[in-house]
């Protein structure tokens, strides 16, 4: 396979606190190919947002990347100096946040914010940047874009504002867009439209998308592949069809159970009892072991690394360890 657009290897993110260091992300690895849509799912607190923040270098101190590498087209970006990283943000990696009501600066018009973003990254005159901004707004579906562009954010509804946010994230034509729960704060009636706009416009420009959500329905319809995070660790990653129709990790199976539209019968709905452990109370071995219906001895002692399961699919669960079991015996 060709060189991936984004490659995350053994990423570790830590937050030093008074009561010791919290590991929010613990050795997470995944790739995103050119133009691909990678869905990222997991319960609230699983580390989805922190993963996104690590990629664009916006983890808030004292939090820090404590290990691993992040590469964009093979070039390391996790250890860049702040100015070099700033040039990548917006220009090569765009970001869409959850809440469109608070993502826009209330004191500037949409035009001012778009033009400022475009001209920060691309050498254009004010007039050219404005023309580009209008075209972009029009493309994300703002009616009468040429006129509305001079309005302030509070003149737009939530759905319209999220379109503006998407326009801003794409203003300098990034190769990768990280969308962190872009529809969670929106009215249900407009959620699908926003996802469609995001997906279409990224496809059109060849931009890859890392779509963070806890809505498996959205993943099923939108993503090419899906990564499942649990307690800061990668549980499973693979093509959407495979993961949805034949989830392998016991946690993923539980998650899939929570979307009735995809499973045929209601009795297949699986509930996962218990809740995700806090970062300072992650059990030894597999992080999922206290809740896992298939837990066995080894799970409580050794942490499972992701195990390759066919084409571009990995599962971090001892149930799938066959070859490695023998290896382990020899060591």
């Amino acid at each position, binding site marked *: 396979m060709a060189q991936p657009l984004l490659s995350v290897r053994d990423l570790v993110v830590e937050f030093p606190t008074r009561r010791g260091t919290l590991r929010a992300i613990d050795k997470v690895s995944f790739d995103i190919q050119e133009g691909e849509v990678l869905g990222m799912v997991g319960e609230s607190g699983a580390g989805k947002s922190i993963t996104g923040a690590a990629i*664009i270098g*916006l983890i808030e101190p004292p939090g820090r990347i404590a290990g691993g590498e992040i590469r964009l087209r093979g070039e390391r970006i996790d250890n860049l100096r702040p100015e070099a990283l*700033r*040039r*990548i*943000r*917006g*220009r090569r990696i*765009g*970001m869409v*946040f959850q*809440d469109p009501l*608070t*993502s*826009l*600066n*209330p*004191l*500037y*018009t949409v035009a001012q914010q778009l033009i*400022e*973003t475009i001209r*920060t*990254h691309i050498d254009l005159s004010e007039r050219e940047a404005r023309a580009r901004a209008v075209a972009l707004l029009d493309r994300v579906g703002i009616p009468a874009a040429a006129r509305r562009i001079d*309005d*302030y954010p*509070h*003149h*737009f*509804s939530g759905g319209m504002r999220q379109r503006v*946010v998407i326009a*801003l*994230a794409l*203003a*300098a034509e990034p190769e990768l867009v990280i969308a962190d729960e872009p529809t969670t704060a929106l009215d249900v009636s407009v959620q699908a439209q926003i996802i469609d706009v995001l997906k279409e416009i990224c496809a059109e420009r060849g931009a890859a998308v890392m779509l963070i959500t806890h809505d498996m329905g959205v993943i099923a319809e939108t993503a090419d592949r899906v990564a499942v995070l649990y307690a800061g660790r990668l549980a499973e990653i693979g093509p959407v069809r495979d993961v949805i129709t034949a989830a392998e990790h016991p946690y993923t199976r539980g998650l899939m159970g929570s979307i009735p539209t995809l499973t045929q019968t209601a009795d297949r709905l699986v509930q996962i009892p218990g809740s995700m452990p806090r970062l300072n109370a992650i059990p030894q071995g597999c992080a999922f072991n206290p809740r896992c219906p298939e837990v066995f001895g080894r799970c409580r002692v050794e942490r499972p690394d992701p195990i390759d399961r066919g084409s571009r699919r990995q599962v971090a669960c001892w149930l799938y360890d066959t070859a490695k079991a023998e290896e382990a015996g020899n060591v």
Partner: protein
Amino acid sequence: MLAFIIRRVLQSILVMLVVALVSFSLFRFVGDPINSMVGQEASIEDRAALREALGLNDPFLMQFMRFIGNAAQGDFGISYRLQQPVMELILSRLPATLELALVSGVVAFIFGVGFGVYTALRRRGWVSNSIMTLSLIGVSLPTFLIGVLLIWVFAVEFQMLPSFGRGDVVRVGDWWSTGFLTHSGRLSLILPAFTLGLYQMTLIMRLVRAEMLEVLRTDYIKFARARGLTNRAVHFGHALKNTMVPVITITGLQLGSIIAFAIITETVFQWPGVGALFINSVRFVDVPVMAAYLLLIALIFVLINLVVDLLYYVVDPRLRADRAAARH
């Protein structure tokens, strides 16, 4: 917009009426104006006649209305102590106070905002920590103590700056006298302006810092960073502008209190302004001057408030609801 202005103006008038009532009450409850005007030897009949002539036997409301009518025309009567029209006295002292307040206000604003922004952006540096510690001293030391300390250091020990008075002044126009145009006038301003402005500066600085830290945590600042805007654009374009919205209100009100607080500074530095005039009038129970001073300070507060509200309106587009209501 128009409705907003009308409402604010009506509120201002109401406030002025209340203050006028308080000022007017001074005449009735603080000393006896007749005693203040005539000598010990005046007969009871003379006093009664004067009382009648001054309308002091009229019903309260009538007297109050007369007071307001006169005040609106700038007539506050004659000072008991100096036997001069009160308005003339005040106008002759006003430029000194306004120039002092203006300089302190501008200095307090510029340094307050500057230090506030600096300490918010460089939260952990030793410079920030020093500024914060010094600012604590600034808010906790009483004004007169700061004034006396400054006089001791700069006027007595180093003999660099004058310790009292306005220096030479130049007349500009009919009644304005300015100290800005002479060397001694400018030198004389430094110590009192610093003394008067220090408290306001630390207040503004702490406010700006707190507000800016708050703004820096908002989503739109995160999103601005995520778009790769430069630190300069994020800090001074996006964060500072949003910080200033609430700061404007407080700062404007501070300007009013600078004029009110000038009383202490003017006394310490023997600054010939309205504050010193007021202190002297209190000492001599010169009720007309006290009443006029109270009304003047209230008027300044009310006017500043009005301007601040309008500024707020100009800065924050969300308040300009005229177009917003129709859209969505």
